[in-house]
């Protein structure tokens, strides 16, 4: 979900924001990820409010730096402020972002109830991003990063990451 005030930003600004990717999932732009909470434009000065995904996410410092550099390349001076409230939720990942995740081999979050069934009760409902089979099993609640769980597909036998729901 991209906030309406963000979609009304000038195209040039949107394009710069789109060019900044999550370093750990480089198919997701910061807009797709939903971590840009506010952008104020004052001439060449851009004030950005950024919210972290997980508290300890090491990507946040990198994203803040990438934002400043990308704006600097277009002769803007960007400042980045980290805001904690309201806390980020996976609901803010855009539809375009969810599609990009699947193509990248990561199953996007399915919602709180689905997580409970799959992560706690082992129900086979999380689809494999490669063959779409839901005949999958959880290997580990924590995957390659804190935001993902590790799954394996019983049909194509490939392992894959599931982006856990965070609400």
């Amino acid at each position, binding site marked *: 979900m991209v906030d309406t005030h963000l979609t009304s930003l000038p195209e040039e600004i949107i394009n710069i924001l789109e060019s900044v990717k999550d370093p750990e999932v480089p198919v997701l732009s910061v807009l797709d990820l939903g971590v840009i909470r506010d952008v104020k434009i004052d001439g060449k000065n851009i004030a950005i409010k950024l919210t972290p995904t997980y508290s300890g996410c*090491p990507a946040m410092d990198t994203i803040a730096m990438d934002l400043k550099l990308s704006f600097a390349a277009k002769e803007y001076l960007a400042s980045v402020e980290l805001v904690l409230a309201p*806390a980020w939720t996976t609901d803010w990942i855009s539809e375009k972002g969810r599609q990009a995740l699947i193509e990248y081999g990561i199953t996007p979050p399915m919602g709180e109830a689905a997580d409970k069934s799959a992560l706690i009760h082992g129900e086979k409902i999380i689809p494999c991003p490669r063959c779409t089979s839901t005949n999958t099993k959880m*290997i580990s609640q924590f995957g390659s990063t804190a935001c993902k769980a590790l799954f394996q597909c019983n049909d194509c036998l490939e392992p894959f990451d599931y982006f856990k729901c965070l609400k």
Partner: protein
Amino acid sequence: MDNSLYQYLLILGDNSMILGHRLSELCGHGPTLETDIALTNISLDLFGQVRSYFQYAAKIADSEQTEDSIAFLRTERKYRNVLLVEQENVDFAHVIVRQFLFDGFHKLLLEQLMQSKDETISAIAHKSIKESKYHYRFSGDWLKRLGDGTEVSHKKAQDALNKLYPFTNEFFLESDIEKEMSAKGIGPNLNILKETYYSNIHQIIAEANLTLPIEKQRVAKGKLGYHTENLGYILAELQYMQRTYPNMQW
């Protein structure tokens, strides 16, 4: 500066930092790849929370403080963590039991801090609670697996529980700072959480087929700065770089 609030942020942050450090010691040493990754991810979450608390503490401090100077340049007596979190890893059972006993409390504490009259603390709690729920689920599941597993895993889990359970009492021994914060509506009245905490963890301990130890509490004054010798060893490692190369950054 509001010294009480500053001290309170240390009480909140130090628990996450020292436990986060203990878990980080397991990086590359977890019993299996999956548990290794899980424990270090939990460590990362805890360090993220610490950064939020200490950035806030640095902001309200009078003197030139940074999140790093608060984390790395205090002496042992200035750390405010409870003694449970500084206890040694020993084996996987100890790691899980320590985590479980802490997570059960942490979740309840954060639920209360979400209502804090201090906006920043409330925001940090809203963020952290989501992570702590995952931690509690992870440690609770493993407690059951160990307790209800083989004869050996059961014995190890029971030994760890006997040793660590008595430390839980300290969560609810209110320091003067915590009493003041509770009166101001910034922190919770810890006594209110006590009953819920024990009823929650006792249920999972019973499901894990484990029994409560005979010794149920011990003297613990970590929040006042009196620590077990473990903290000295932790700080020796944690502070080494800043002490050897002052103001270093990376």
